[in-house]
């Protein structure tokens, strides 16, 4: 058995500061890994080869890791990833991971609601949201942001309505497509989770 020493170090400190140990474990659990891997498998790496300095916005990315690791492992030419999450403690942990991994030049983080305007001075080519069930539909989130038409949105949601924080679940892949407001759907799929519920993914452009 092997645990990444950086994860171990970050968790050790976090637990000492009364972060919820179960949450930390859940963030790297099999379900989380599987869903993140599903997204990373469909990262448009071939298309990204033709882009200058690909930049990514990560909505509601929570601690940011392990997804950020997985993204960079799949495609190390990613220029920057910004994790935007309103949970200050989650962003603090993201910052610690980032420092420990010496990824400060690539990874940034903002503690704010994704509904609020975001600094759009950079040409963001990919927006990732693996927690759509926690927030309003994409059209509502991006109405005050000027992403270009070519920007690719990679979204995941699920039908786990019983979870208290899940304010915007969907019950099917088609419903998720419809609610995404994306007109150019590049990919969509359904993933059966181990707990019997379904996770949905939609990739597309406006």
């Amino acid at each position: 058995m092997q645990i990444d020493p950086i994860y171990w170090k970050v968790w050790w400190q976090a637990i000492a500061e009364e972060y919820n140990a179960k949450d930390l474990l859940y963030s790297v659990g099999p379900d989380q890994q599987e869903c993140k891997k599903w997204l990373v498998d469909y990262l448009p790496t071939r298309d990204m080869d033709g882009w200058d300095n690909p930049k990514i916005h990560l909505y509601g990315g929570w601690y940011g890791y392990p997804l950020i690791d997985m993204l960079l492992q799949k495609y190390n030419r990613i220029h920057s990833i910004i994790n935007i999450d309103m949970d200050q403690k989650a962003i603090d942990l993201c910052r610690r991971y980032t420092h420990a991994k010496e990824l400060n030049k690539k990874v940034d983080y903002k503690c704010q609601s994704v509904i609020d305007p975001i600094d759009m001075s950079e040409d963001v080519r990919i927006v990732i949201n693996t927690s759509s069930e926690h927030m309003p539909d994409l059209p509502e989130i991006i109405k005050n942001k000027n992403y270009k038409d070519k920007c690719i949105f990679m979204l995941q949601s699920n039908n786990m309505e019983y979870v208290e924080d899940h304010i915007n679940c969907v019950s099917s892949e088609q419903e998720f497509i419809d609610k995404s407001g994306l007109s150019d759907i590049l990919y969509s799929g359904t993933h059966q989770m181990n707990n019997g519920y379904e996770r949905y993914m939609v990739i597309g452009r406006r």
Partner: protein
Amino acid sequence: MNIVTVKLGDKFDSSFVNRLYEMCKRNITQDFKFFCYTDDFKEIDPYIHIIEHEDMLLKPVFYKLYLFYLFQTGMYLDLDVVIQNNIDHLPFYTKKGCVSLIRSQKGYNSSVMTWDSTDHLWEKFMGDPEKYMTIHKGIDTYLEVNAQVCHFSQFDIYSRLYGIYGCDDKPIYIPETGRHKEYYYPNMPICIFNSYNKTIDVKKGHMLDDKSYKGFEHYWS
């Protein structure tokens, strides 16, 4: 826009040409002319323009390069592809002097091509066809070495056998069925059927055959 396909020999019958034309009509909104370069035009839809095959003693696969000479700009489609959604945008990937291709798991794939002013590729090939036909098994590697290549998006064209290139990227053999997993992405514009009706490899199992088109019939019928 010029859309071209090639039918040489008896691997495909005229129904493949006619159904490809039908799929183009459904999925291209701008004006286009549909051409078929062939040695046998019987039963081909009368609205398809026929270019009669001229025997230049080449291996059949290399006649695709001749299209660069015949048409300054164009879109080529293999007879076995299925067009699922609109493909109006595919020519826009192509810059002058370039050929647009699919980046497959191991290089380029020419099942779908668009080009603009690339007759030099034919001329170079015809400068010493024996040499190029010895070096290159097909035109994919010839183009890789000799052409200025643009790429289609990986979400424009997927393979029934390999899935989305760069995402799935591999054939998956299913021992229980004795067949390979057959990928299907309804939102994507084109599905290519590479390895269609290629020899059955005992170790790898069956690749793609007519059964692989099951469920796709509504795209042309």
